[in-house]
């Protein structure tokens, strides 16, 4: 069943920059899709178009059979940014509860769901802490908990682990897969890291810049569930190489892409 359908989407910004040109993509329910590409290939823009935070100049996006705008209104997706975007003046629990408050849930229901979410991201006991008391990795976990709090079918993530160190990143990758498995949502993930894209995804969408377009879509048929051992699988390296070559062909040589 198609979860997200991107049909002929183009985006041109004022001033003439063509951020995206004619993007066609279909994402199935339950998939984990990564967008990877050099700076300027439009991956973040595309993510925001799916989330109806930016309007395409041409083309359309359908989410769960509705327009992107309707999907946003119906809270069909949760979004996680690179910066955790937690509100300093709210405790961890209150931050997670924010979308639920806006959706009009009553106190009891909110408290129950927040407790579930804290368990899910393994931050049990940190509910009454304030964001400044948590590490970067923990803040991102709160951000993920918030995004999942109303159990959306779709999760949009814009380089959520980009600001973290390698070890925390790998740990959070594993956690994200566990959460993905437990929640059953579709994930659209933007990243700069080839290893991360290959490790997490069911398919990797390689994009190129000027103008932003899809170069290749590479299916990742590594076995699930993926563990630390997966990163040492020879097939993992082959797939990473495939992605890297697709990136180079797309003209990303001068851009910094982390392997």
């Amino acid at each position, binding site marked *: 069943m198609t979860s997200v359908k991107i049909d002929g989407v183009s985006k041109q910004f004022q001033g003439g920059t063509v951020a995206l040109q004619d993007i066609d993509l279909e994402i199935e329910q339950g998939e984990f899709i990564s967008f990877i590409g050099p700076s300027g290939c439009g991956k973040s823009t595309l993510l925001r178009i799916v989330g109806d935070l930016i309007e395409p100049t041409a083309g359309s996006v359908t989410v769960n059979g509705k327009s992107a705008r309707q999907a946003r209104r119906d809270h069909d997706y949760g979004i996680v*940014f690179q910066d955790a975007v937690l509100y300093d003046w709210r405790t961890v629990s209150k931050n997670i509860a924010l979308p639920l408050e806006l959706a009009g849930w009553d106190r009891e229901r909110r408290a129950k769901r927040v407790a579930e979410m804290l368990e899910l991201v393994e931050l049990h006991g940190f509910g009454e802490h304030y964001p400044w008391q948590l590490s970067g990795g923990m803040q991102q976990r709160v951000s993920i908990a918030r995004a999942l709090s109303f159990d959306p079918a779709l999760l949009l993530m814009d380089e959520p682990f980009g600001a973290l160190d390698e070890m925390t990143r790998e740990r959070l990758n594993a956690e994200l897969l566990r959460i993905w498995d437990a929640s059953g949502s579709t994930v659209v993930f933007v990243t700069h890291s080839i290893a991360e894209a290959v490790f997490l995804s069911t398919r990797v969408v390689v994009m190129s810049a000027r103008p932003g377009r899809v170069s290749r879509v590479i299916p990742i048929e590594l076995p699930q569930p993926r563990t630390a051992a997966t990163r040492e699988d020879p097939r993992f390296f082959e797939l990473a190489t495939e992605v890297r070559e697709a990136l180079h062909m797309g003209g990303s040589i001068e851009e910094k892409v982390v392997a």
Partner: protein
Amino acid sequence: MTVAMTKRAREWFPALVVLVAGIAIWEGVVKGLDIQRFLLPAPSTIWTSFSDNQGQLWHEGWFTFQEALGGFAIGCTAGAVFAVIVARWTLLGTAFLPYAIAANAIPIIAFAPITNAWFDPLTKTSKMVIAAVLCFFPVFVNVVRGLRSVKPSQIELMRSYDAGEFTVFRLVRVPTALPYLFTALRVASVLAMIGAIVGEYYGGSLDALGANIQQDAALFQFEKAWAEIVIACLFGIGFYLAVVLCERVVMRWQPPVEMVGA
């Protein structure tokens, strides 16, 4: 618990030393060099004058403080309200902000005689107006800055929840602006007292501090004048600390920051 206490004590010890030493030196110099009382009274004589006139002093101080408080309330509210309006319509904001900042440079105190002409100088109103105008600008400028300092990603997040403008205002802009508001309130509390007292120099009831300070100074009753100044300081510092306390309570979520200056 005791470790924290000794740490605290050690931090405040040098300040205490300076205070005690300062007063001792003052007393010593005045007595030792037999400085004329109208030049610089000794702390002991000021203290005597203070305790002798306590009742009257507190009464005068309270009178003046009410003027300051009233002006503070009016000025800060007006400043905040206008800031909300201006921040909402960015075009207005970009236009007005520089003028508000420049207007802050006008010696508003020069208008004290005019407010005395408008309102009966013996009432509190004329001084309240001065205090209010002095409080208005810092609050206005700071709240505008605070409301505008919201990060774009925070707005994006709210849009992803399809939150309305007022909700965004209530849940995001207001809390973001609070630290800025409190910085301004601290400054305003000081300005309000100054406005009230100085306003009284241009004409005020003898129930008020400013008029008395001026009179006593002119009559060379310096000990009494100093005692009145001490009262003014007490109210001023008290007001400031009250604002700081309010700030600590409202913004419990702030990480402990080393406070250097207001």
